């Protein structure tokens, strides 16, 4: 038994390690192709990325990635694929910002109310795909991609025509600024107490703490509750799940809606913590990068946390590549090669694990 555990640990490390070697090789080749030294590139990225200002930005980038990845992981675990997180979080953010500025509540309650609005909108938007799948057999992959386009257009239309705050004269169209009670406090004052100094343009989203808590909730619900079990059962063997009494159609619908509700929260760290409104500068692509985060993190809350941080780090630190004349888009190559090599490595390890277990079993039976 001890031996098995040792090899299990070795296996768990071998996969990511092999993936890291392969992806560093590919990224280095890409840098070499532009006649630059990969070692310089990595050194520049590391030096820039490990300054406290960059690390704060890394956390701010990682927070929405993480929440969005949790949303996607819900559907992965259920054997579904919600590509529509991008649209769901966008609509959640714009409705949350617009409606949230329309009322005033005591501090904590106000934030909760905005979150509920964002979750409701995101959930309803994703539920359309769930409904189409259950009632008409439309693939959720296709419908959520289409709903993304709709959400993009719809949010721009709503912002320009109905939600824009006409009392300010700014080029950047924006919803009305949230009242103080609806703003999520920054972590900076707290960090100051621990001796971290203010950085230009710095600050750490308070929703980082919320995201971590959400990760724990995710773990508990998925791994330790009846609902989570039925969701995972539907994902790993839908027929057996049905035979065991899971209402598969209902599960598809609920998983999609829940995923959308969580996705609705992913746009809020910036809205509640930085801009305090939804404006045209709202970041795009969170929902897509989060797919990679979920895949790399294997739908595991801790794994996704690490991969969100990794992607955040790469994204922020790669901006420094411009300083030494390398296209910062090299980051995209790094992200892609990490993802590809790790997905392959995981699969290899998974198969090897089953073989290994069968052998262990043969041994145990023979004894």
């Amino acid at each position, binding site marked *: 038994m001890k031996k098995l555990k040792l090899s299990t640990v070795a296996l768990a490390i071998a996969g990511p390690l092999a993936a890291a070697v392969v992806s560093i090789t590919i990224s280095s080749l890409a840098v070499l192709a532009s006649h630059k030294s990969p070692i310089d590139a990595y050194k520049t990225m590391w030096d820039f990325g490990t300054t406290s200002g960059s690390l704060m930005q890394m956390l701010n980038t990682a927070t929405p990635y993480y929440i969005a990845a949790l949303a996607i992981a819900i559907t992965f675990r259920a054997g579904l694929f919600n590509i529509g997180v991008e649209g769901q979080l966008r609509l959640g953010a714009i409705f949350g910002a617009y409606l949230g500025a329309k009322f005033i509540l005591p501090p904590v309650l106000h934030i909760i109310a905005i979150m509920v609005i964002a979750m409701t909108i995101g959930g309803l938007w994703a539920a359309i795909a769930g409904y189409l799948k259950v009632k008409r057999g439309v693939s959720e992959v296709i419908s959520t991609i289409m709903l993304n386009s709709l959400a993009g257009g719809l949010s721009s239309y709503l912002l320009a025509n109905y939600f824009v705050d006409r009392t300010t004269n700014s080029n950047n169209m924006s919803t009305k600024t949230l009242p103080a009670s609806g703003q999520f406090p920054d972590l900076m004052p707290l960090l100051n107490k621990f001796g971290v100094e203010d950085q230009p343009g710095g600050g750490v989203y308070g929703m980082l703490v919320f995201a971590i808590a959400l990760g724990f909730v995710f773990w508990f619900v998925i791994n330790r*509750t009846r609902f989570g079990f039925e969701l995972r059962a539907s994902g790993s063997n839908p027929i057996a799940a049905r035979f065991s009494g899971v209402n598969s159609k209902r599960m598809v619908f609920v998983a999609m809606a829940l995923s959308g509700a969580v996705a609705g929260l992913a746009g809020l760290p910036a809205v509640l913590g930085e801009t305090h409104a939804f404006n045209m500068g709202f970041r795009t692509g969170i929902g897509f990068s989060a797919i990679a985060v979920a895949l790399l993190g294997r739908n595991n809350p801790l794994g996704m946390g690490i991969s969100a941080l990794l992607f955040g780090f790469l994204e922020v630190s790669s901006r420094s590549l411009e300083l030494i004349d390398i296209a910062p888009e090299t980051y995209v190559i790094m992200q892609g090669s990490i993802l590809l090599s790790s997905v392959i490595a995981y699969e290899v390890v998974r198969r090897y694990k089953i073989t290994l277990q069968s*052998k262990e*079993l043969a041994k145990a039976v023979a004894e």
Partner: protein
Amino acid sequence: MSVAVELRHISKRFPGVIANKDVSMSVETGTVHALVGENGAGKSTVMKILYGMQRPDSGEILVNGTTVHFKNPNDAIEASIGMVHQHFMLADNFTVLENVILGSEPQHGITIDFAAARTKVVEMAAQYGLEIDPDVLVEELGVGQRQRVEILKVLYRGARILIFDEPTAVLVPQEVDDLFNALKGLRAQGMAIIFISHKLDEVLRVADDVTVIRAGSTVAEVKSKDVTARQLAELMVGSELPQPSTHGDTRRPEITLALKDVSIPTKSGSRDLISHVTFNLHAGEVVGIAGVEGNGQAELVEAIMGLRDYTGVIEFSAANINDLSVAHRRDLGIGLIPEDRQRQAMMMESPLWENRILGHQRGKPVMNGFVLDMKTIMTDTKSIMEEFDVRAPGPQTLAAALSGGNQQKFIVGREMSKAPSLLVASHPTRGVDVGAQGAIWEELRRAREKGMAIVLISADLEELIGMSDRLLVMLRGVVTAELDPAKTTPEQLGSAMTGAS
């Protein structure tokens, strides 16, 4: 007659496991020699050694009297040994001819000499009684014909010694007859045939000699005309066989399950999948459903479980359950052992403890409210594994790592652990070894005595007759006969199933 192949004192160890220990057998030309043994007894290892896929640690292989050392299957093919695999290795979008010559194409310059190949294949097919159209695509062929292509492939490579690995596992009875005729034809042509199987009635039909292997060692070599299936089975197991049987009448007055005029119409309006099925099942009673597979048994199970829409009425403990979901029916106390365990009853890549929960996730003992009770689940999984002799290191083992028999024992254990008042059991002992079969029968007997009602569906006629209090025969979705198992022989039941009587 001369000896075609001889194995002398072959031993093979894998790390921690002795797969073969002192295996000896000798196969004469012009005979069919069966190698029988339980699953895991070491039959496949013997064949892999003979076919060059594995090398023995000690012992000798002789082909036509000369010692050989195979490094790989190519060496074995060179020595005129061929293997017909259980799982066919054919290219679907190639014709029969192309498949047969694939890998050893006759060359004509740089092109393939199809004309020569065709002549040879057609000749060969006629000679051995394996007629088949060489130009038809393999994807259009049935299983039996695909097997013919496999055999032709092996013969085309010049094999004189043919190994058949569980060849009948995938065939329907008619195809089995065809295969056996072909085997007899090959035997008449002086081929030596090694036939691996655990279906003893087939072995006795087709084989001249039988070598029995148990726990990695040969325990007997007998002439098939000198033994009965029962004696062979006892040699395989090494002890007396368990019997499917029940004692006395344990029927209680209350009716557990009642079907009233239950039909499953098809949308297209053609023949109903099951039609006007009506029967009562008392507590403590076993009703056996006999029928050739595909005559509505699977649909009947799905109707009882609520997995399929039906017309008519199904009552459980005198209450109409038509509107209840699968979950609700299970919670009321209906247990299910589905026919396809891997597809319908297990999450293969999940550990056993999660498989313990499946189907029981709505209440005690695995749940504490809406939260999994991990401690109970673990101890409970362990006790099921002990009680039902599921051979695996522990609850964390993945279901996929278990052998089919152990998976089945685990599923039976899981369903019995809840002591349901009705158990729907489809092929509860299919694919399990004799020892486990006996244990499962014993469990069913005990449950029946305690008042469990059982719907038993099986393709094993002796199991049906032995375990049932009453037999219903299904043909094309209709219950065509009700038989008393005490007065029914397997032959009578078999002809009732085909509608011949």
